[in-house]
């Protein structure tokens, strides 16, 4: 069934709102495509709808809500005089403001502490950006150096402990653990009284080298350990 102009006009809004069935839409399109009177009508109403939907809501008068509340809840008690100037203080008690203020203060404290600001002897110069940067840079390098030294110390102690533990596990006689060598001779070489096995000789050489390395790294540790080890070697 072909629609006429009256039907097109009657169902125009349904078409624009997408409420027509597919068959109805086909009939609608078929008529509009061939009708010179319906095309401008469809175009003008379509443009009108897009204009209406583009309109923004008109802002209400600023005092309208206040007047409505006065009318319904009654006049608000307005503090006059110098007390009215402190009406904003009530806003500070709102939870949202309190949370924001606490967060802000905590952030400032953390930043000042990290930047080296002294709370016992505050100086204005400590707040300058250059000083804050320098202090933060120095602190960062100090922390890095200390942590590096700590890790290195741990590594050395672990190595010493593991070597000493291996020493104690070897089943040979105490005298043969460290080959007897005459003073002045190369480590590992003996005075001939009792020949050292190659393994014992290599082990002695290794221990000697490690002691030298450790001595370079930790003078204090080496001063304590060397007499003990040297004493065992000289026996």
């Amino acid at each position, binding site marked *: 069934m072909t629609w006429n102009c009256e039907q097109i*006009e*009657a*169902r*125009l*809004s*349904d*078409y*624009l*709102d*997408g409420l027509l069935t597919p068959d109805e839409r086909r009939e609608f399109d078929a008529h509009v495509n061939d009708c010179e009177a319906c095309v401008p*009508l469809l*175009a*003008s*109403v*379509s*443009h*009108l*709808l*897009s*204009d*209406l*939907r*583009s*309109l*923004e*809501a*008109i*802002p*209400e*008068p600023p005092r*309208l*809500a206040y*007047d*409505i*509340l006065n*009318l*319904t*809840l009654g006049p608000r008690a307005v503090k006059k005089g110098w007390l009215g100037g402190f009406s904003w203080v009530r806003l500070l008690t709102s939870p949202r403001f309190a949370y924001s203020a606490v967060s802000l203060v905590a952030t400032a404290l953390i930043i000042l502490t990290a930047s080296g600001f002294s709370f016992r002897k505050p100086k204005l110069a400590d707040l300058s950006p250059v000083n804050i940067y320098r202090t933060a840079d120095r602190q960062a390098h100090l922390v890095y150096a200390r942590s590096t030294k700590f890790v290195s110390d741990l590594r050395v102690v672990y190595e010493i402990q593991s070597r000493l533990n291996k020493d104690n596990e070897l089943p040979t006689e105490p005298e043969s653990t460290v080959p007897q060598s005459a003073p002045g001779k190369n480590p590992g070489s003996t005075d001939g009284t009792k020949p050292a096995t190659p393994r014992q000789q290599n082990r002695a050489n290794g221990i000697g080298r490690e002691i030298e390395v450790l001595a370079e790294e930790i003078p204090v540790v080496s001063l304590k350990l060397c007499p003990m080890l040297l004493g065992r070697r000289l026996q």
Partner: protein
Amino acid sequence: MALCNFWGKLVTVAGFEADDTLEQDAQLVQQCLQGDGSAWEELVRRHTRRIFNICYRFTGNGTEAEDLSQEVFLRVYKTIGSYRSAYGGFATWMTSVTRNLLIDHYRRTKRDRITDSLDDAMPVVENKESAGRRPDQQLLLGELSHQVQTALTKLSPELREAVILRDLQQLEYNEIRQVLDVPEGTVKSRINRGRIELARILNQMGVRPS
């Protein structure tokens, strides 16, 4: 067709958001009934602009719209105990109260108004030519809003309220049916005729389509 698809999607999104708003309104109403003044303040804050826009678009007068908005909220405040969620959303009920007040106001002031008729010669809007010289989209919207308002006041009240509720307040057909208390077929018919009339008025005013 693209406009229809976009509108369909907008209605779907608006429907999803409207459910959340309905629930919040219902909760605030319950608190109001228990005497919570802050809940009433929140309701006023949420609906003032919408009610003001309905009143302004219907009357075309800012002062009247302000007075009528206050009357609406006063009436809602006094009769909020009679609201039942079974009647629909609180916003719909409030729109219904607004509409009734607007019609009463229109009938009271009918004799003070110039008769609106399509047969009257309409002056061409002077800014028709100047609109093309203004590149600022914000200004164009302002002019368009004024032109639409002028055209709206020339519609009959029945067609005017239907177009305002559907195309300016984006109410669903079902909600408009509740507000106007007429069958849905009548709602569709009024919206359709209102749009066609409004388009013809704007064309006669010389407003170019966007």
